[in-house]
């Protein structure tokens, strides 16, 4: 990997994060005037984690304040918000947002304390929003199925109910990590959080047992179930498993629910790398091509590539970490990153499929124009949604992990 280029990219990632935080605290998913000029709790939470990793704690706090103040009366965080914190969602429940915000809040608390947690941690901030924390936890637990101890969702990270409606691994990992985060926050504030701890342990055990396939030696994507309260779930109309590979099957380790060296995780990552590394373009795809739902054409995503590099860094596999991060560095354009990258050929195939099927929405036409107008188009690449802020935050996190592991003097 070209470290000079990586450093330049890192610096620009920080700049982009700062520039794309609205004065009210929300991180745009993509800048105003582009495709996603809204605040999505998922993207926003990762941006907060990016600022924490970069030591930008006041930005992180501002981001958390924005989101905690925008919580719905039910305790849910909506799919997306405008810059004033008004719900502008157009999709159904995405419960991973609840987990991610609690997780990010706990990471913030720990970062403010650092080595002097007892004296320095920003407990006052967490105390100020304790009611919101309680409501966020309650909302997660309201969506827990007591037969299997897993959290039910309709959408998750890919906003794709066809494969995510039910007990999905990313939603469950983030919610479980969020519950543990709330337990840590509560403990720091002297609250009684024993019940939450037990619930979090139940969800964790269920993830490791029910969302892991011993015969495949891999975590699986989803147990599809239509209704949260189907009892028994075997009789639910959707009852089935999604066993296709998905980059987020790494989520249990990414969110600290399982050790990176645990063979269940190691083998899951092997399967992800084997089946989702893009042989033509490099980089990691998010799920199999046959799902045929990559606006702008099938291809690798920079933030999932960054995410998986964290595994290789953690297990001391520098070659693979370099392969992953080096690819991200090489694909950045003007030190900025798109949502994902495709080829001209795949782009045309996608366009053809969606046009024929009559599912090409008007809103996609602008995206198509931008892809074709991007300088990389002439080199044979389709850069889709440029820039997307999320991968910049993921790169900050991944590159800091990489440098700390392989270049730290201690």
């Amino acid at each position, binding site marked *: 990997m070209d470290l000079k280029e990586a450093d330049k990219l890192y610096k620009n990632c920080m700049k982009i994060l700062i520039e794309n935080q609205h004065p009210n605290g929300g991180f745009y998913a993509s800048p105003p005037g582009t495709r996603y000029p809204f605040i999505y709790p998922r993207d926003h939470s990762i941006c907060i984690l990016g600022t924490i990793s970069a030591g930008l704690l006041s930005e992180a706090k501002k981001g958390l304040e924005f989101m905690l103040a925008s919580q*719905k*009366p*039910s305790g849910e965080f*909506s799919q997306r918000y*405008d810059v*004033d*914190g*008004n*719900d*502008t*969602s*157009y999709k159904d429940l995405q419960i991973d947002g609840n987990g991610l915000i609690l997780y990010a809040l706990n990471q913030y608390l720990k970062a403010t304390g650092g080595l002097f947690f007892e004296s320095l941690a920003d407990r006052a901030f967490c105390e100020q929003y304790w009611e919101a924390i309680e409501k966020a936890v309650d909302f997660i637990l309201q969506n827990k199925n007591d037969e299997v101890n897993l959290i039910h969702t309709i959408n998750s990270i890919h906003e794709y109910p066809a494969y995510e409606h039910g007990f999905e691994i990313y939603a469950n990992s983030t919610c479980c990590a969020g519950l543990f985060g709330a337990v840590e926050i509560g403990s720091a504030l002297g609250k009684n959080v024993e019940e939450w701890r037990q619930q979090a342990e139940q969800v964790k055990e269920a993830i490791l047992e029910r969302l892991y396939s011993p015969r495949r030696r891999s975590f699986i994507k989803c147990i599809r179930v239509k209704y949260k309260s189907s009892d028994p779930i075997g009789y639910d*109309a959707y009852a089935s498993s999604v066993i296709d590979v998905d980059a987020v099957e790494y989520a249990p380790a990414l969110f600290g629910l399982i050790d990176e060296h645990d063979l269940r995780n190691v083998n899951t990552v092997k399967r992800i790398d084997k089946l989702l590394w893009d042989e033509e373009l490099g980089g990691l795809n998010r799920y199999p091509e046959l799902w045929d739902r990559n606006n702008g054409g099938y291809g690798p995503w920079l933030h999932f590539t960054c995410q998986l590099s964290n595994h290789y860094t953690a297990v001391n596999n520098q070659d693979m970490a370099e392969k992953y991060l080096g690819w991200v560095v090489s694909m950045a354009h003007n030190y900025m990153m798109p949502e994902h990258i495709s080829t001209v050929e795949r782009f045309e195939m996608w366009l053809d499929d969606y046009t024929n099927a009559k599912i090409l*929405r*008007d*809103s996609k036409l602008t995206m198509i124009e931008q892809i074709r107008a991007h300088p990389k188009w002439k080199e044979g690449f389709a850069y889709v949604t440029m820039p997307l802020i999320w991968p910049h935050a993921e790169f900050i996190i991944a590159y800091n992990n990489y440098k700390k592991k392989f270049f730290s003097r201690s």
Partner: protein
Amino acid sequence: MIRLGSMLPQAFMIGITDLVNIIGPEKTVKWLIQIGRELAETQGPGLEGAPEGDLNYLPICPFSDELIHFIDMFGERPKEFQTIVEYVKEREAANTDKVECPAVASILCLMHHAYRVKRAEMAGYGTLHLACRSVVTGSKPAYNEEAIAKAGVTKEEVDKILEKGVCIFKFVKEE
């Protein structure tokens, strides 16, 4: 055939027709509006729809599938639905502040509009409902001409958006 798992929305619409006969259209309309408001309270502040310039629109009607399914089962739109729509039109004709009225293409617009208005109100916005197109075959779009004028757009512009959407409204920040 009614599948038990999807029976509730159909039961709700049968309930509406029964209610018109039991308590009359005026109270039924109030009841539908009240449901919309109560549901809005549970969701908190929010602004619906996809932005299109200064306007917002819904590409599809969230109730269309259930409505079509209901009509498929029971034939023509029940006369009670028509009774409600006619009542609303008469009421609006007598209303001096038509700008605030919903553009009603189906009875469910009443509940939906009340929900949308209440959530916008919690966010500090007023709502103008410009037009709505029913998904029921043969139905004409419903317009609120006063709201269109107040929104500062033309009917032609509204019609243009109606080609790709079913419901058009504008949120106005309250002073």
